[in-house]
């Protein structure tokens, strides 16, 4: 007689011959499936051909899902682990999926319900918006386009954000339940897609209508000091030499402090990214300096990063123009907008492979602005 495996395993287990006659069956198997003479009789009719096909592959152990009729209910989902041995007997272990399965069902049912509540009209408008944005990305956006876009975006963004945010919350909640199913990538796609749309919209709102600047007289040296404070550790971490040259303390601009910081930080981040994109390991360097330039203050931001080609330079300030995988392409267009609102301008000079210089011109404050 064939050597029998250990039947004390606390799981439904069958031992069968080539005709799938059941030779032995564990206690658990009896409890769950009842007594059967042949293994086929406990398989749901519609998955018998699956079993037939897979069980015939005798040379390697098989694992697959199968629907089995239990004493309790028909067509329950099981994971089957099946292995033939040399004397043409086969061990079949059946692990019920119900727990895992139920979780997933619940999760997806809830998600589907949410989909049912999605406002499809908004969705269509969102897609239109994105299409428009894609077009804009190609053409060099003019200011009136920007205004138009801003109008549309502002009307849509608020409405869209709410449902999207709630879906994201939901999906994040569900993610842990789905890990085992290896379908996380699906969830990831949803989350990142939603994040992307959200961030585009948020950023876009900023571009389209930056809050009217709350202007005050600011010594440029103050601005630089704050910048240094904010970025010192980050640049150390990236092994970049951040040089902020001393500025004449009497040099003042009349500007919104937060917006100016946003501009300088955007520039700094671009510079850091340009350096980290360098193929070789030359030491990255970023230098900030400021000096009087007629009625203006000129702020120079210089880096020795990858630089940019003609094509990039001409599209630089267009919203959504980016050469980065994860960029929104809104950084510089926002900067441009802000500086413009301050009565200033930005220009750029760059040599591919060597580096880039941005110059920001802002009106100086010679005397204290009159109080009105």
């Amino acid at each position: 007689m064939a050597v029998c495996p250990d039947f004390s395993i606390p799981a439904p287990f069958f031992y069968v011959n080539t005709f799938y006659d059941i030779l032995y069956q564990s206690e658990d198997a009896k409890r769950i499936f009842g007594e059967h003479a042949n293994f086929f009789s406990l398989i749901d009719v519609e998955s018998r051909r699956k079993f037939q096909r897979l069980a015939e592959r005798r040379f390697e152990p098989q694992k697959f899902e199968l629907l089995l009729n239990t004493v309790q209910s028909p067509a329950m989902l099981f994971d089957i682990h099946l292995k033939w041995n040399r004397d043409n007997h086969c061990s079949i272990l059946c692990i019920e999926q119900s727990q895992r399965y139920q979780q997933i069902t619940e999760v997806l049912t809830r998600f589907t319900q949410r989909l049912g509540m999605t406002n499809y009209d908004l969705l269509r408008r969102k897609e239109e918006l994105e299409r428009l944005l894609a077009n804009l990305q190609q053409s060099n956006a003019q200011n009136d386009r920007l205004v138009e876009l801003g109008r549309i975006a502002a009307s849509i963004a608020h409405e869209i954000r709410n449902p999207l945010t709630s879906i994201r919350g939901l999906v994040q909640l569900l993610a842990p339940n789905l890990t085992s199913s290896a379908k996380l990538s699906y969830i990831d796609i949803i989350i990142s897609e939603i994040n992307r749309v959200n961030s585009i919209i948020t950023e876009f709102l900023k571009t389209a209508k930056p809050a009217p600047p709350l202007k005050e007289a600011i010594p440029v040296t103050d601005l630089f000091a704050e910048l240094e404070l904010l970025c010192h550790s980050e640049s150390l971490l990236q092994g970049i030499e951040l040089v902020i040259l001393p500025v004449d303390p009497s040099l003042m601009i009349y500007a919104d402090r937060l917006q100016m910081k946003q501009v300088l930080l955007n520039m700094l981040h671009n510079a850091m990214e340009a350096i980290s994109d360098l193929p070789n390991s030359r030491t990255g360097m970023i230098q900030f300096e400021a000096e009087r330039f007629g009625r203006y203050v000129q702020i120079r931001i210089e880096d020795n990063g990858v630089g940019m080609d003609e094509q990039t330079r001409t599209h630089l300030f267009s919203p959504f123009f980016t050469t980065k995988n994860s960029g929104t392409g809104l950084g510089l267009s926002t900067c441009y907008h802000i500086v413009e609102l301050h009565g200033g301008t930005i220009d750029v000079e760059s040599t591919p492979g060597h580096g880039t210089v941005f110059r920001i011109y802002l009106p100086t404050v010679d005397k204290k602005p009159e109080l009105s």
Partner: protein
Amino acid sequence: MNATHNNRFFQASLDLTDSIRMKIIQFAHILLSGDERKSWEFIEQQLVNGIHSTEIFCTYIPLAMTYIGELWIENAISVVDEHIASCVCDYLIMRYQAQYITPPDQQNCQAVVACVDGDPHELGAKLAVLLLNRHGLQTHYLGVHCPLHHFLAFISKWRPSIVALSVTQSHHLKKVQDYLEALQGLPYQPEIIVGGRLIHHLSYTSSKGAPNKQRLFFMQNLHELAGWLEQDYLPIKPE
């Protein structure tokens, strides 16, 4: 996948050209990827190419799901993948209705659709709802967990002229009998449709005699419903 006589997808797609079959397979893979947007783009592309929406809902979606069922048989995917593809189909159906079907403006209920209580397969039913709505019939869908007595209560209250029942799993087939018997007790005579791929296995014999034969229809697929709506269905004119 091998084209064997045993393969449901190939059996069901025998009438189609190879190129449509390939399209459907391609569609099935998009569904499995869980990418709603791409799936929707696929649908819109077919519409642009001149494929009639009836084909999308009666052929493309059902056959893509059948193909997916065959992938499971082949052990190429798991039930979780089927779930994901089903979610995407749900999305497509809802989105199509939202975008292309103007809801009939009557405030009553002209048709009702439900799944046999306990059968979780509802894509067939949802597609039937879509076809009925598209035909201008204000249709209510009662879902997959609607017990028989709720179903009856709803029908008695609204008196829809069409009552449709969807059944997918073989072991739920016998319940259909209970439904049909109960529907006989109604104080009026709606058109009754029972839809399901296995419906030909059902031999309905009522203890109380069959419901009016003219008004009971067994349909194996959605093409039959679409055809029936176009040709045979004559709504009773409200007096």
